[in-house]
């Protein structure tokens, strides 16, 4: 019997993560409502000035996506037991394939998370929607970048006692270019500029993060 190729293995691993998520429903049933609560809290803290909320709504949406998206991207790594990790290693699947599978599942979950929160943000803040066609590129690119960074951080913090708090500290500062690009795309459209450079920055972050997975996955998965 021929063993499945790396792409097939990564897809199967992603499917496994999505299946587990489908059973637990944590991203869409717990984290997304929590993000919705956060979107509701901001106006209560900064005041219910409608023009102000319209102008900051888009930025607040992306801050919530970043902070809560980190939880989504780290969730599966934090839930892995040592026995599960050991079993995956014993199956002989290459570490790059394992991390790619996880990142792919995380990217899909993050995209679903973004799409769930987007109508809530539009409803609460009523931001200008003139940049909406660019969202078709920005939403998946942010989801992919955050997913890969979260997967890397999950591998770095695997098995540590403080992994749930350490992971976000590792990811959020490194994800700054994602936040900056996502918000600046809307800003550029508002002032009549082409936001291609910001989309290119998003793509660059995604490519660098993917290269980091390819380069370091083996080092991270070694036995001590």
């Amino acid at each position, binding site marked *: 019997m021929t063993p499945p190729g790396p792409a097939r293995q990564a897809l199967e691993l992603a499917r496994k993560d999505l299946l587990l998520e489908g059973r637990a429903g944590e991203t869409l049933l717990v984290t997304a409502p929590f993000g919705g609560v956060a979107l509701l809290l901001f106006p209560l803290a900064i005041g219910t000035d409608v023009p102000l909320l319209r102008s900051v709504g888009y930025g607040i949406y992306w801050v919530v996506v970043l902070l809560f998206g980190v939880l989504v991207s780290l969730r599966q790594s934090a839930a892995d037991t040592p026995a599960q990790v050991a079993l995956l290693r014993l199956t002989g699947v290459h570490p790059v394939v394992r991390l790619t599978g996880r990142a792919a599942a995380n990217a899909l979950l993050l995209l679903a998370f973004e799409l769930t929160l987007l109508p809530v943000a539009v409803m609460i803040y009523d931001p200008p929607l003139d940049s909406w066609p660019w969202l078709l590129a920005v939403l998946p690119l942010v989801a992919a970048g955050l997913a890969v960074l979260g997967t*890397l951080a999950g591998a*770095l*913090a695997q098995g*540590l*006692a*403080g*992994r749930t708090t*350490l992971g976000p*500290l*590792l990811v*959020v*500062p*490194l994800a*700054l*270019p994602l936040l900056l690009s996502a918000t600046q795309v809307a800003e550029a459209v508002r002032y009549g500029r082409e936001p291609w450079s910001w989309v290119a920055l998003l793509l660059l972050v995604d490519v*660098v993060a993917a290269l*980091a997975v390819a380069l*370091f996955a083996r*080092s*991270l998965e*070694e036995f*001590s």
Partner: protein
Amino acid sequence: MTSVSRRLTAVTVVVMAGALAAALTAPPDRLQGNLQRLMYVHVPAAWLAYLSFAITLGASAGWLWKRRASLDRLASASAEVGVFFTGLTIALGSIWGKPVWGVWWTWDPRLVTTAMMFFVYLGYLALRRATLDATVRARRSAVFGVLAFAQIPVVHMSVVWWRAVHQPPTVLKPAAPTIDEWMLAALLLNVLAFTLVYVLLLRTRVRLAVAEETYDAAHDRAAGELAGQAITTPDYRKEFPNHV
């Protein structure tokens, strides 16, 4: 204290004294007056933050290649000193910013990216602290030490890419430096003095790490001996002398 440490300390003290004298006697800025003298600490501190994290990058990459414990110690010590100098840069920048810009903090890309760099390396130190096994700690922090350096070019180029209130580079730029010669000389002397302080701190921190490791190894050995003493193999020849 070894003779190298004594000599290094003496040289550092002498150069620091010269650098202080140069900073105090250099001509004041035409617009900012004496306030601009903060530059002689702020700029060297920022330079050392870059240097520290570059050394962390090099030592981390070296560890991934050679797996030598000394490289892990160097990477970690340099990151610690770098976090200190980054904090100093931010604090001095804030003190300088209040009279010049009118605020302690402003949403300038250089300030924001520097603060992010500070948190990225705090994350590096937190990762080290959270990992108990020495080999796993060295491996994971080496990977993160390489990844984290991606921020440094962004911090340095932020004043070129996004023009805001922070001035663009004066010395480290493609064109000739745009600064008075005396000021430049005083600045370079201060950079040298602070670099010597960095070397001294780094050396001390590495030696402390070696001492910590020696202590931990001795502690583990002592604990091992106790556990071994608690369980002894029964001597059947003594207890059952007639047993064949």
